[in-house]
């Protein structure tokens, strides 16, 4: 089989995680297998850290950084915002990071990464730079530095591990917390329990508005898509942004074994659109394979339990469904990938 035939075949081949539609590594050559499936992976975030069982962020960071390490030949520096990822990986003298790693503050990871990248340029080094943080450190307190890094088109890939709240400080609301979700600062009390509708922001869209070379959303439910996006991002120079949906068993009130399932359902219901954009334009969206009502996603999480009290659905479930429907339309989430 020549290269072009192989490429054609692979275009048609779809990969799904175990638990859904099992088509995986075994069907492809070693070179085509996922980074995580390779014995050569860098284990950049190695075992022994103190994340909770089923932590989506630990998984997302491991997938993303290992992929970036492969893409850069392990010539990579990571800058980390304060947050769960920082705390659970570095209770010194223990550290889980197998690459040079710097933590400065909660709100400045993007700017610190700009400085690290500037130093590489001035020193004539090829070393690449990633900044990473949770949604609080990205969409709230780190937003000014993030936007500054974007508009200067600094040579940094910023990865936001979006678990939809301030989980490190005990599950408070962030601007990435979905409507109706219960957090410690949007308690399930009063006539409209949980987070308020009509608030919050979706930073990937704001990143696109900066016109930067590459923006993508991803999910820990789709390892190959996530890895491909990180590898693609590392092949591009300038400011890049990837936001990965990472379920938090503690904050979402879900069993640890449901992390991947929840990540998948968030995509399949349309609440978390998975797309790519280049230079200010959306270029591709990942199609929903088997659409589900948002209710099926919400009902598995205690943070939405108040929507289903006494066997009656709160009318706000319909409002959340409307948000999903709008996403599906806006991002073209139905249909065939090849279309």
């Amino acid at each position, binding site marked *: 089989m020549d290269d072009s035939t192989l490429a054609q075949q692979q275009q048609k081949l779809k990969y799904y995680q175990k638990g859904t539609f099992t088509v995986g590594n075994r069907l492809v050559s070693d070179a085509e297998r996922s980074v995580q499936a390779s014995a050569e992976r860098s284990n950049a975030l190695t075992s022994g850290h103190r994340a909770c069982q089923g932590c989506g962020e630990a998984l997302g960071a491991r997938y993303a950084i290992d992929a970036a390490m492969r893409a850069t030949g*392990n*010539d*990579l*520096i990571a*800058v*980390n915002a304060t947050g769960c990822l*920082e*705390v659970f990986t*570095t*209770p*010194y003298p223990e*550290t889980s*990071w*197998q*690459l*040079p*790693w*710097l*933590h*400065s*503050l909660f*709100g*400045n990871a993007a*700017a*610190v*990464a*700009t*400085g*690290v*990248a*500037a*130093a*590489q*340029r*001035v*020193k004539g080094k090829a*070393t690449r730079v990633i900044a990473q943080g949770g949604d609080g450190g990205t969409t709230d307190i780190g937003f*000014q*530095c993030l*936007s*500054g890094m974007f*508009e*200067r088109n600094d040579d940094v890939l910023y990865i936001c591990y979006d678990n939809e709240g301030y989980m490190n400080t005990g599950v408070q609301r962030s601007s990435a917390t979905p409507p109706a979700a219960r957090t410690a600062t949007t308690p399930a009390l009063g006539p409209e329990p949980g987070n308020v509708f009509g608030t919050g922001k979706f930073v990937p869209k704001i990143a696109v508005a900066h016109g930067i070379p590459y923006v993508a959303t991803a999910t820990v439910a789709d390892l190959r898509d996530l890895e491909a996006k990180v590898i693609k991002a590392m092949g591009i120079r300038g400011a890049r942004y990837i936001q990965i949906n990472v379920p938090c068993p503690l904050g979402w009130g879900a069993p640890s074994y449901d992390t991947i399932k929840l990540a998948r359902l968030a995509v399949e219901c349309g609440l978390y659109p998975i797309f790519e954009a280049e230079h200010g334009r959306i270029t591709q969206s990942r199609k929903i394979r088997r659409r589900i009502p948002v209710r099926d996603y919400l009902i598995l999480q205690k943070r939405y339990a108040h929507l289903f009290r006494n066997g009656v659905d709160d009318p706000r479930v319909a409002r959340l469904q409307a948000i999903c429907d709008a996403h599906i339309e806006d991002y073209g989430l139905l249909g065939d990938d090849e279309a």
Partner: protein
Amino acid sequence: MLKQVEGSHAVAEAIALCRPEVICAYPITPQTHIVEGVGELVKSGALQNCEFINVESEFAALSVAIGASAAGARAYTATASQGLLFMAEAVYNAAGLGLPIVMTLGNRAIGAPINIWNDHSDAMSMRDAGWMQLFAENNQEAVDLHIIAFRLAEELSMPVMVCVDGFILTHAFERVDIPEQAQVDAFLPPYDPVQVLDPDNPASIGAMVGPEAFTEVRFLAHYKQRQALRLIPALSDDFAKIFGRASGGLLRAYRTEDAETIVVAMGSVVGTIKDVVDELRDEGQKIGVVTLVSYRPFPVEALRDILKTAKHVVVIEKSVSVGLGGPLADNTDGALRNLDNRPLLHSAIAGLGGRPITRASLKRLFHDAVHAPWEGPFFLDLNERVVGREIHRVRKVRRSGATAENILRQLALASHLPQE
């Protein structure tokens, strides 16, 4: 080379001579001309091998410098006043990480009420952040201190803030000797970091530290600044050898040998004080002045050695720790604490928000210190009439309004300016 040059521009030229590799710029009066000047040098190609980054805030400016420094580049930024406060978290962070960043502070008051003119409130707000803080008396010293600052910072791996009085120095055209590149190169070797982000030797920097080690980390920061008490004079000697003039050091004494009254001050006001000292010496008074160059580390022993034989110490400072008085007076008091026959200490707050400190007022102040001493902080040239009226008014009316605007209205009335 001797030049008639604006202070900010002289500082910019000095920075360029230090071969910085990453410069972060964000405008704020009165330091803006400095980063503009360095920016021109980079853009024109006069300063090579340097990344000049226009950032979106002071917080980002210092954060970019933190990243650059941790990655092994010589990093510089400049700020003032509100800008320093906006980057406050990063100020502490840079020191805590032990990154030898050099930053110019064009000293300016802090609002509210908003005020763009000179005082030392900004520097004082960060005095405990772990940075070394050097104060320039004139623009020649501003130039020299920056060159010394890079060497000092990098030898100890600790950041240095060079404080240059806003407008009074930053915008003043003075004759300044700009050093030659070869001189600076002889004084300042390339930056050799003690820690660096390096894929060949991956390390984690900025990890969580608990109660078991935090005290030790802080102690070592203090220990480094104690080392600086010896290093700063040594660098000053070294500087003199290469550049042919004395500059820097911990402090400088002027006509203090037999002085019964010694004034302590920092920054550009010392020039005026020296003139007054000369006048009073001509009148037969035994008076001198100590210029404090290094405020952090605070040279307790060196200051005590000079002050111990005096009868009166007058501390003049451009800042007030509200609810206490003058921080410099407080620190000076600490230096005198264990003397058997300690001099009387007189604290004066002067020049706040750019109010001129005149020779006439200083003469009166030095006279009163000996003949009519006061308790606590004395606010030089305070308009007591206006203050008295406002205090009275506030007592009478509950909704008395905004203090600053009320004071301005009173002053306008007093000068018969048109009213609304």
